[in-house]
């Protein structure tokens, strides 16, 4: 029987297989940031262990960094200590680090692909659930906890049980104005926050093949929001074109050999998935969330749902709680929801195409009175590219704030936060209670919807302008 893409990549990394034990899986690339690593490095020190492969490890500062005044020390002493701890750990253990202020600094899931370190057929891990982003290249990439970070540092391997596989096939073409973010929000709403649990999702079909690499990263990024450990897309000409010439991509004859191998990384015709879902892309419209988990989303043209409409008691109770937290009333058209803040950025939507989409909507328009809009590039390289293209001027002229690179308002670990009761339209990945700041209310949206919302002050798509 044939194998799926995920199985091929998994099998190629099994160091050791024994009856009754998990497989030992080799890790090609370990990404490290300041939040989930300090206790792992401490563990190494206590056991007198070294980092086995510093040359397969790279670190950046992202979660805690303020997005203004990058060259000044972080004002919050606890954040500053965490960042300084990473610097010491990287120096002690010989790991390459891109600190704040460095031209290579950025969100961990933005810099890996940018450097060409994320490659088809590799295994990528990071102490961060959005590691699934790298699956866009046909890598098997998943988030791990701090104990596992320590394990990878010490051994460059992880004990793993072969995951189940799930196909999400998106047939047809996305209509004009419908983006990768709308697609993944619709997929999560369809299969639920636990729908992918225990599985690696492979996204396939015409609509997926038509996406750019950045769109594919947006889709794979939010696989975790559907409960999946990883999301993958088979590498193709789009992937190779993105990779070619990047600093760490193979070169010359090795490039040819690599591409030949990468072409074999596709699910065999006779392979069987454990689970399959088919979605019609042509029926999709801009999609936004109304609740407090990423599965609580609807097309922008719909209204806030009535909890009583849910048959499942757990879902009904979750919807009731979500409406109360979000301060929403059942039946309100989503387009009537007014926001205080618009956030563009994060590992989901902080790349150059996202910023181009935002600038495209904002060009010649103004952010609505009383609305605060933050635009935060995913890396310093993205920031520079945007500035070279003049996007920063368009964004600033519209009245939005143009910031330095970092995780920013995605997760309330740095100065960019919502205040209690404040409502945002956010291009990030999680609308959990308090995610963007205690008491903050988050609607997840695409960059295009974020920009249109900033202009009108209410949830809107560019077509509404």
């Amino acid at each position: 029987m044939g194998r799926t893409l995920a199985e091929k990549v998994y099998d190629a990394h099994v160091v050791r297989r024994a009856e009754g034990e998990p497989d030992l899986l080799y890790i090609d690339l370990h990404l490290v940031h300041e939040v989930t690593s300090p206790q792992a490095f401490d563990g190494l020190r206590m056991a007198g262990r070294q980092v086995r492969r510093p040359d397969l490890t790279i670190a950046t500062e992202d979660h805690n960094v303020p997005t203004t005044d990058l060259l000044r020390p972080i004002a919050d002493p606890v954040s500053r200590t965490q960042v300084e701890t990473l610097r010491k750990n990287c120096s002690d253990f010989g790991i390459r680090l891109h600190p704040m202020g460095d031209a290579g600094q950025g969100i961990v899931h933005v810099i890996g692909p940018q450097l060409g370190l994320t490659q088809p057929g590799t295994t990528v891990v990071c102490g961060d659930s959005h590691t699934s982003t790298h699956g866009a290249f046909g890598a098997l990439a998943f988030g791990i906890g701090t104990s596992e970070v320590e394990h990878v540092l010490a051994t460059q391997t992880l004990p793993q049980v072969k995951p189940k596989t799930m196909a999400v096939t998106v047939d047809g073409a996305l209509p004009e104005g419908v983006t990768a973010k709308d697609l993944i929000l619709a997929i999560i709403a369809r299969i639920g926050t636990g729908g992918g649990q225990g599985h690696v999702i492979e996204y396939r079909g015409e609509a997926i093949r038509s996406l750019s690499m950045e769109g594919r990263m947006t889709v794979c990024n939010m696989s975790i929001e559907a409960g999946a450990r990883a999301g993958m897309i088979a590498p193709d000409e789009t992937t190779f074109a993105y990779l070619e010439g990047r600093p760490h991509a193979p070169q010359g004859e090795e490039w040819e050999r690599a591409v030949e191998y990468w072409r074999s990384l596709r699910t065999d015709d006779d392979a069987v998935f454990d689970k399959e879902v088919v979605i019609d892309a042509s029926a999709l419209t801009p999609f936004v969330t109304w609740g407090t988990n990423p599965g609580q989303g609807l097309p922008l043209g719909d209204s806030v749902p009535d909890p009583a409409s849910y048959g499942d008691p757990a879902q009904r109770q979750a919807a009731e709680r979500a409406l109360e937290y979000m301060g929403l009333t059942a039946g309100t058209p989503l387009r009537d929801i007014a926001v205080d803040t618009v956030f563009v950025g994060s590992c989901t939507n902080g790349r150059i195409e996202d910023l181009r989409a935002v600038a495209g909507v904002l060009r010649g328009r103004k952010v609505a009175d009383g609305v605060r809009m933050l635009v935060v590039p995913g890396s310093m390289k993205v920031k520079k590219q945007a500035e070279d293209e003049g996007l920063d001027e368009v964004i600033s002229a519209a009245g939005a704030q143009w910031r330095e690179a970092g995780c920013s308002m995605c997760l309330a670990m740095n100065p960019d936060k919502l205040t209690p009761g404040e409502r945002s339209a956010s291009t990030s990945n999680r609308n959990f209670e308090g995610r963007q700041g205690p008491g903050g209310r988050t609607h997840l949206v695409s960059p295009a919807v974020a920009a249109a919302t900033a202009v009108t002050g209410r949830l809107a798509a560019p077509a509404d302008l």
Partner: protein
Amino acid sequence: MEAFTTYTGRAVPLRRSNVDTDQIIPAVWLKQVSRTGFDKGLFSAWREDPEFVLNQPRYEGAGILVAGPDFGTGSSREHAVWALQQYGFRVVIAPRFGDIFRNNSTKMGLLPVVLTAEQVEDIQAGVEQDPALEITVDLERREVRYGAESAGFEIDDYTRWRLLEGLDDIGLTLRHGDAITEFEGRRAPWLPVTV
């Protein structure tokens, strides 16, 4: 890690689904660089509500958390496990867990037990009626017992053995250092290095 064989004690019912790790330990607590002190951050936003279950004296001292489906979804933060353990929990029972949370739990000796939604509901109702209800979670027999009821749960043999023995993975993996070195010799020449 701490070995887990059997735990007998009281439980606290958390009647919520999709309890993501941001709720278990909000991000502001993640700035610590030590492994201790996370008990104060456990459910810190929800604990501001005096009615929240963990604030109810009748559930004080419970070592088992009984939650709704999709417990521990979202962020990979292992701090969620540390917070639950440091607060005093040894077991979490739920109909379904986030994969990374479940994995992190078994690395630390916090036992995640999957029961059906009906069994979870039954235990929650039982505890609400009688907070002193004694519950035994028996890893050796893969069984939860309370009152006259018993419910079996699944856990793979290897994870169960590791938990029963309190073994940490790194030591086990390092026994296979030769196999790792041998594998490294077979890796494709084009694979990237970060240096």
